[in-house]
């Protein structure tokens, strides 16, 4: 058996009054529950733990087959026995981020003070808050130092934030298809997705729990997302101008092209598996993040001892390589040990989920050399 079989999600709750989690905004939030999964065994001196961070709409179920849902984890090809994150050697932890909707406290959670879902009364959270909340879990597990932290896209931002916020607790970090602040274009794309949700009448200012869901808004926001996760070339290869179930175009506004049908399907399935308010909060957290807001970027890495591997993809236009190169440059200014590679691939931003062969070699070899 090469995969962790029948994994289950665990829960950790902290921040009971008066020890609530203090958010970056100054607002207090508590109690906070984090859903997490672990794979492999924590060794005796607790030195083999690796924290995996998921992307915007991911969850704690990174690997194996889930006991209840029978779903396979979102990074299953990378995590397991003999895989890049080898569960023979390492103890892997993946946490559903704060603000998410897959078991961790977020806008769809019930506010204990009111007995109703938070909705828009949930405080605005940041990448920093997500990282700080996960530090509570790592402390709870008795882990003083992580062997590595890794993630793609939003997960990469969290790994990056951890490296500068808790530099003494992290030996190495693998940042994939990520950046250190969102550009105007990235914020703009998120804003279109948010507006799609918020202009759906069913969104009802975030108060839709137990009622009709803002399905149309969610579908449109997901369609935009999917376009940005692919590249022009991968879309052309996958769909081209192929028609969906017909010989010639219909000269009407029904779906003619396969790509239209694909986006419609992706959009429709999204509303079933994700919470609209969580999408708003998490995308906003991404937009707010800026590692260079208090200092120049180089200043952020002063004294950082973590060893880094940074991976980008040539066709990723959502998180283009130059943003990671800026991070590499800032790290070099501070004598930080960093390796950087831009993998040549057509899969766009999604590459971190599908371009397994190259990433596996890099990750397994890099981890072998972390001492």
């Amino acid at each position: 058996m090469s995969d962790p079989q029948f994994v289950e999600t665990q829960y950790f709750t902290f921040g009971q009054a008066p020890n609530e989690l203090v958010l970056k905004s100054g607002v207090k939030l508590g109690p906070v529950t984090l859903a997490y999964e672990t794979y492999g065994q924590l060794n005796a001196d607790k030195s083999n733990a690796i924290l995996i961070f998921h992307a915007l709409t991911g969850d704690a179920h990174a690997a194996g087959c889930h006991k209840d849902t029978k779903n396979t984890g979102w990074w299953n090809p990378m995590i397991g026995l003999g895989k890049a994150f080898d569960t023979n050697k390492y103890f892997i932890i993946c946490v559903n981020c704060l603000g998410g909707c897959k078991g961790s406290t977020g806008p769809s959670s019930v506010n204990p003070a009111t007995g109703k879902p938070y909705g828009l009364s949930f405080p605005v959270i940041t990448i920093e808050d997500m990282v700080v909340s996960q530090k509570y879990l790592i402390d709870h597990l008795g882990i003083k130092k992580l062997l590595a932290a890794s993630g793609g896209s939003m997960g990469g931002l969290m790994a990056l934030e951890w490296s500068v916020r808790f530099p003494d607790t992290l030996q190495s970090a693998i940042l994939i298809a990520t950046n250190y602040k969102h550009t105007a274009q990235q914020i703009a794309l998120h804003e279109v997705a948010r507006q799609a949700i918020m202009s759906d009448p069913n969104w009802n200012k975030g108060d839709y729990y137990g009622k009709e869901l803002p399905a149309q808004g969610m579908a449109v926001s997901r369609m935009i997302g999917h376009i940005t996760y692919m590249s022009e070339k991968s879309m052309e290869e996958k769909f081209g101008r192929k028609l969906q179930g017909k010989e010639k175009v219909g000269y009407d506004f029904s779906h003619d092209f396969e790509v239209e049908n694909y986006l419609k399907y992706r959009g429709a399935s999204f509303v079933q598996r994700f919470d609209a308010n969580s999408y708003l909060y998490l995308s906003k957290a991404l937009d707010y993040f800026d590692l260079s807001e208090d200092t120049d970027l180089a200043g952020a890495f002063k004294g950082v001892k973590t060893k880094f591997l940074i991976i980008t993809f040539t066709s990723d236009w959502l998180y283009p390589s130059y943003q990671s190169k800026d991070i590499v440059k800032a790290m070099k200014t501070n004598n930080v040990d960093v390796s950087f590679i831009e993998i040549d691939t057509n899969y766009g931003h999604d590459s971190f989920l599908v371009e397994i062969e190259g990433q596996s070699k890099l990750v397994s070899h890099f981890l072998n050399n972390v001492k």
Partner: protein
Amino acid sequence: MTMRIDHKYILEMIKPDSRVLDLGCGDGELLSLLMKQKNCHASGIEIDEKAIYKCVERGVSVSHGDIDSSLADYSDKRFDYVVLNESLQEVLDPEKVIAEALRVGKKVIVGIPNFCNLNARLQIFFLGRVPVTQGLPYKWYNTPNLRFLSIKDFRDFCAERSITIERECAIAGQQEVPFARNLFSEIAIFLISRSSK
């Protein structure tokens, strides 16, 4: 595995525990040797994606990029040595790259193929064709080399710019060439520096 002759001489030039940057480090063989045998803090720049995988496997820190633009990332005298072995002839702007290497490194090690060795000269003279030798195995249409220079050319280059050649090592086959170096050697390795103004 026997050590490459050029790596052997470069290793001799580098003091233990140094900070070394290898420009065009390939699969990281030299850097790996420097880490193991000289306890150096070694890192590299390499343009070839496949070579980067090998570097990471060897535990060598490497950045994917081209030499011409990568040196701007480093502050002055960051490295004890900057190595440009078998890569100078492939860069777009060698003059700028050497100046930059001397800025970020206290000393620079340059390894060049000698385009004017006897074999090459004979081929030009008798065959009337651009030479193809063991050290220069390419035809004019597929060579990665953009610059063609000899030992004398490089000496002149340094002299014109007040760059000190601290050591010069000329090699043919597996041996150092003691005399008539520009005629007999296939490669040459220079240890250069610029005295501080």
